[in-house]
């Protein structure tokens, strides 16, 4: 089946764009920059596509703008909102915007192209006035239930006299803090308006998304209690490790910073994937599942934005011993893409649109469009843990001769501390010997035996000089597998 992918791709592109057949050795993805309207400071907080195929986008200074890809014209849908960091069109034509203070439904009731009704969907969460209390999301599951996340406050600023929500002094200490309700939580909102805390232990969870099986994933940012940035598989009632939000657990009456780290560590759910800081990613953003075959050979996998590097990340997950874990790599790593890749949305034509932001930190501004050319990238499609190492499924048959060199593959492992301090260096960095390898008859699966497999470590695989049989070099030669559990 996989051999047919390029043919399908050419057909798909041919129908829409009359593209010539892709060069199998040429780029697999191309990046196009979308023209932005004059006068817009394009710090992009949210993008998505309306039912009619137009793009709707939220910007830092409160504008909600609509872009028609056909006419390349921008129009203003709304203004005056507060730093909307998420946007979600609804089937009825209204648009949900996650503003700092509330989730708001914007409706154009007189059909003049501009929103005139701004309805509070929920504001039942606290605000201390601290600038770092961002709100992210929402995402909607198959039943219409919404999920959004609430960032914690920063010790680089205090709280204001007039707050919203009850102030809890137990949540005030710490580098990042949760002194008003549900900061550091993922929240669940039912269609009938019932809002409930869903999971906690988050720091600045700037990215929510479902995979094709309806599992919720949330990214977070390296900092206190986060040795490096993670991707979590988020399930109801779990605690994900950033401690301050524990103060909102019913009956919780101590400063969680006084609890032993070992106890906290035992309470937390581990990240499904860790993104090595300063190596792969410094600030991962929104996860989005590849829904079909129009974006290359990665249907079902997650693509994740990244703020500090001109990259998109790709995550391949598997269930091991009842929990999800897996590997991260880059999908594209090119200066044609800008930094600040904050928000992702698939367009009706199957291309991926990327909204960029800097927001006072590292990043860029604007919107770009990433399209698959039809060329099959030479990539590790799937990385699976075995009892003795890893099986790597490849997108193209591997030229076995390129694997013979000693330098063709190096494996190292390291781990990150779970502690109150900000970030973590790589700890216990160890070279791991590849004791044996075998390539399948179709040259599409490479089985690696490693000297040792140790839970709690990230396994980094660095390929060099490895090519497909068609001569294409490995497009993304670095992989990082988070080994929480053994087979």
């Amino acid at each position: 089946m996989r051999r047919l992918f390029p043919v399908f791709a050419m057909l798909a592109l041919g129908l829409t764009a009359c593209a010539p057949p892709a060069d199998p050795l040429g780029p697999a993805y191309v990046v196009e920059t979308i023209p932005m309207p004059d006068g817009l400071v394009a710090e992009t907080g949210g993008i998505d596509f309306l039912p009619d195929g137009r793009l709707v986008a939220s910007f830092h200074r409160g504008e909600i703008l609509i872009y028609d890809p056909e006419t390349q014209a921008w129009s203003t849908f709304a203004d005056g909102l507060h730093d909307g960091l998420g946007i979600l069109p609804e089937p009825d034509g209204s648009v949900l915007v996650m503003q700092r203070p509330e989730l708001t439904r914007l409706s154009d009731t007189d059909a003049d192209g501009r929103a005139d009704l701004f309805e509070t969907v929920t504001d039942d969460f606290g605000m201390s006035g601290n600038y770092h209390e961002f709100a992210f999301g929402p995402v909607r599951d198959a039943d219409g239930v919404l999920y959004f996340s609430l960032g914690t406050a920063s010790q680089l600023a205090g709280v204001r006299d007039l707050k919203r929500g009850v102030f809890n002094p137990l949540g005030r200490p710490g580098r990042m803090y949760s002194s008003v309700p549900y900061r550091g939580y993922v929240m669940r909102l039912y269609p009938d308006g019932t809002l409930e805390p869903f999971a906690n232990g988050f720091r600045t969870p700037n990215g929510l998304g479902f995979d094709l099986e309806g599992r919720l994933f949330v990214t977070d940012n390296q900092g206190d209690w986060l040795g490096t940035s993670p991707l979590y598989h988020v399930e109801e009632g779990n605690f994900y490790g950033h401690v301050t939000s524990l103060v909102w657990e019913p009956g919780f009456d101590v400063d969680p910073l006084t609890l032993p780290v070992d106890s906290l560590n035992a309470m937390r759910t581990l990240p499904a994937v860790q993104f090595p800081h300063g190596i792969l990613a410094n600030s991962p953003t929104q996860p989005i599942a590849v829904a079909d075959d129009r974006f290359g050979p990665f249907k079902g996998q997650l693509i994740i934005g990244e703020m500090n590097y001109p990259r998109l990340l790709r995550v391949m997950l598997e269930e091991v011993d009842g929990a999800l874990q897996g590997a991260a790599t880059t999908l594209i790593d090119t200066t044609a893409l800008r930094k600040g890749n904050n928000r992702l949305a698939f367009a009706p034509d199957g291309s991926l649109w990327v909204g960029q932001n800097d927001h006072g930190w590292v990043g860029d501004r604007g919107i770009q469009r990433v399209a698959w050319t039809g060329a099959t990238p030479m990539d590790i499609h799937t990385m699976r843990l075995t009892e003795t190492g890893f099986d790597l499924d490849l997108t193209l048959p591997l030229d076995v001769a390129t694997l013979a060199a000693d330098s063709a593959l190096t494996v190292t492992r390291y781990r990150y501390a779970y502690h109150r301090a900000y970030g973590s260096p790589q700890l216990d960095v160890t070279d791991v010997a590849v004791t044996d390898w075998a390539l399948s008859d179709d040259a599409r699966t490479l089985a690696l035996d490693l000297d040792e497999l140790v839970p709690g470590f990230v396994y980094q695989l660095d390929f060099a000089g490895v090519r497909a049989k068609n001569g294409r070099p490995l497009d993304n030669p670095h992989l990082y597998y988070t080994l929480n559990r053994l087979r």
Partner: protein
Amino acid sequence: MPARWFALTVFLATLPSLGQAQPVQLSIAAVEGLQYAPMQLVVAPGDEVVLTMDNPSSMIHNWLLVAPEQRMNVVEAAMALGAAGPEQEYIPESNAVLAALGEVAPGEAGEVRFTAPTEAGVYPFVCTYPGHGFVMYGALYVTDDPTTVPSAADDPNLPSLTRVAEAVAPHPFIVEYPALYRTFVPDASPAAIVVSLDGDLSFCWDASYSHLQYAWAGGFVDNTAHWSGNGKYLTELIGTRFYQQRAGFPFRLDTDEDAPEVEFLGYRLTDRLPTFRYAIGEVMIEETITAGEAPRSLVRTFEVGGHNGPVAFVTEASEGVRYDASAGSWDEGVLRLSSDQAQQFSITMTAEED
């Protein structure tokens, strides 16, 4: 080095220039659009300088000469003054501040005398009113050879025209009034809404508490500081407050007991004018605020729906305004309405003469 030099400057600046050469006269203006004109000044090392600044713009500005590369540090230090900022005219205590001219109000002028640095170099000058310093700055060239000063168009030490344009025309459209922003402003909760009816008459309506917090005249807001980066700084109000609520949530249904629980439902825009909607249980209230006939007055039109008992609207004498109502009767600052009267009524708030 800067610390000792600063002390010397202050010393010289406070003495008459006995036996010294005539000071160099510099003039500058703080002009509309958060800019100095000119943005470049040139003196020789050690010159005695008298700088005068006119302010034909519509906002208050100051002028601080700072040590090389220290502009943003001084800007941040000024913002960190918080509530002490206005009193100190946003001049932070810092060795990096080499000379300072405090508040110059719109239409006025100010003068500062200082000794130019003895070391040649590029010394930024900047306005440290909140947010201004991100775009409102220039460069004092201290040099014996003015021909080395780059042309303003090529000067990397000056704000880019793009950044200035972003501060002055901040959106991809022209701001039309009534205009509304949800933002962080002083003396309100973090869920504040600010509205200006015409660019001059403005108010803050607080979505956390579903009531008006205050109103002011003379301008709207400057979001430059709040928008720069991650939102750490508050939006600045432009103008003078004439109304400050003291009574809290004003409505009482059936009883004069404590203020009821209220839920903010959102707002509807009619020709950009918001009608706020909130609920006390099943009782729906809509509030639309327009300009009154007097220069500093607001007409608040209310519609209370779904309530069959008496309605009271509570005010305080110290709120800075005189109240008039279209219906009901006043009883020691409390407007008492029947449920029929409450279905639609208006309250006019007019600034008391001061």
